[in-house]
């Protein structure tokens, strides 16, 4: 539409004023419909992602070597407590973190990498989280030792 007359300009201005008035009336409501910026992920989210990825890796490896199942159970226990601690819901599907390989060597490497993550998280964790993350770091190191 081409705005070529005073009436139409006034209408337009009125429309703009009307919109401004609405915005004033509803306060920030007009902008409140915008999606909230996503909250920053919890510092322990990567530790949780790795626990899920390792649990899945051991599940696959346990098909050929059932003795490996207990390690996956440890990681599942870690994931459950971490999820409760940070208020995350555990995914029922495959984890988003890259899945660990199935071979013992690949799992051992994944344990060592995951131990590093947990160790770093423990060093900066607030007092009430230091114990749980510390135990997880130690468990991952022990798993890596057991796979030697």
């Amino acid at each position, binding site marked *: 539409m081409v705005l070529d007359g005073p009436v139409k300009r006034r209408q337009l201005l009125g429309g703009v004023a009307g919109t401004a008035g609405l915005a004033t009336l509803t306060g920030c409501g007009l902008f409140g419909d915008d999606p909230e910026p996503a909250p920053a992920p919890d510092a322990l989210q990567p530790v949780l992602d790795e626990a899920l990825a390792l649990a899945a890796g051991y599940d696959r490896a346990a098909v050929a070597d059932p003795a490996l199942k207990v390690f996956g159970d440890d990681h599942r*226990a870690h994931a459950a407590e971490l999820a409760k601690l940070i208020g995350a819901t555990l995914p029922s599907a495959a984890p988003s973190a890259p899945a660990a390989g199935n071979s013992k060597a690949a799992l051992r490497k994944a344990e060592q990498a995951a*131990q590093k993550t947990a160790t770093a998280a423990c060093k900066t964790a607030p007092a009430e989280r230091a*114990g749980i993350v*510390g*135990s997880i*770091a*130690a468990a991952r*190191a*022990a798993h890596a030792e057991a796979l030697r």
Partner: protein
Amino acid sequence: MSDAMAAALAAEEAAIYAYGLLGVKLTSDGDLTEARACEAIHRDRRDALVLRLAALKASTAPAPAGYQLPFEVTDRDSALKLAIQVEDGVAQAWRATLPSTEGGDRSTALSALTDAAVRATRWRRRGNVSPVTLPWPGRP
């Protein structure tokens, strides 16, 4: 902080005592080498803790001359069982220091907890104890 660290010191002292005693019942070279390495590490941790607690001007109880063992060590099986129990106890003592420490002290505590969990796993494997790992090392 220093109460928990004093408890870690007591756990390291107890570990040194236990290794001295259980080593007598070990005969294979592999077991003995492992036990000596463990004892040496516990001595290092003990010495570092003594220095750190002195720097913090924390008071510590003197180590007792002897300890009541949880069970009699009569053979290799009971010696390995004691080694596992000692490392689990050391892991617990160090884990308890994590909430009240920060910086270098927390790093030391975490590395001591991690090492103890790894050594406990090695002893479990030597003793054919299954599973070889605990889900929550250091959790009482």
